[in-house]
């Protein structure tokens, strides 16, 4: 594949998945500033390795590969900073910027409880839920992004939902 074709294909990939990568980054790092940096770094890395990824993908979608890059970069970011996300998602700010007024009228408290619960999950469970519900990825895509088998991913998501259910119910009982 010549360079011009490769660049055109990368441009298509970028346009198709900018929102996916940004959404993943935002829910992963918890604020827009770091999410922007992470998104830029992800596409830079992707650009560097795009030719090989296309050759090795065997026609499969490249979204899991992109998300895996973002996942690895986010892990490096936290390792460099020697700590977890500096700012857990600001529920109030998040609800205001991401959700419509209609959403908020219908259940602001419930959405806030869900977001808070998601933040309490272990990293791998939280990431699996972000990929499933924010990005709409299926089990196979999530498995590829996380470097797990399809079966292990199915179990991971099931456990994540069960644990979140318990957290939310506990919060509801305490309220």
């Amino acid at each position, binding site marked *: 594949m010549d*360079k011009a074709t*490769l*660049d055109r294909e*990368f*441009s298509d990939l*970028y*346009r198709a998945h*900018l*929102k*996916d990568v*940004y*959404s993943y980054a*935002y*829910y992963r790092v918890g604020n*827009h500033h770091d*999410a*922007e940096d992470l*998104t*830029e*770094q992800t*596409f*830079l890395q992707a*650009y*560097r390795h795009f030719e090989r990824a296309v050759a090795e993908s065997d026609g499969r979608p490249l979204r899991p590969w992109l998300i895996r890059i973002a996942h690895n970069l986010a892990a490096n970011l936290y390792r460099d900073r020697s700590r977890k996300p500096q700012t857990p998602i600001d529920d109030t700010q998040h609800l205001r*910027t*991401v*959700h419509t007024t209609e*959403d908020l009228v219908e*259940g602001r408290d*419930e*959405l806030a409880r*869900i*977001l808070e619960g*998601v933040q309490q999950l272990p990293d791998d469970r939280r990431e699996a*839920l*972000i990929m*499933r*519900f*924010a*990005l709409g990825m299926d089990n196979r895509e999530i498995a590829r992004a996380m470097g797990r088998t399809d079966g292990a991913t199915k179990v991971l998501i099931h456990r994540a*939902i069960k644990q*979140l*259910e318990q957290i*939310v*119910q506990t919060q*509801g*009982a305490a309220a």
Partner: protein
Amino acid sequence: MADRARNEPESIDLEAMLRRALKPVDPPEDLAARLDETLTSLTDLVAEELEAWELAAIGDPRRWVDGLARPAVAAAVGGAAGAALVALRVHQGRGRRKARANDPLDYAEQTVRAVADEARKLLDR
């Protein structure tokens, strides 16, 4: 029966709520515009960085960049993709360089070094 129902945890459609809570997030317009510009047309940043280079080279280029740097950069940024990569990476480091720089000339010097370093990395691949 009614008492039992009242004591049971509230039943919720968690998956539906997760879909609502974890809505996809639109990237800021300026991010989309910046990435789009950098990854597709790629020209403005290259010009900007090369202009900074020319400014710095008015003095003594050997003070800042070794003799091999300029040919290396010229070769690496010869293709659009190479230029894009060098420009993007150099552009990404601009905040750090500005923070470290003592004055505009120092910033220009650091930009020159960054362009040369990134170009060498490209050639080493």
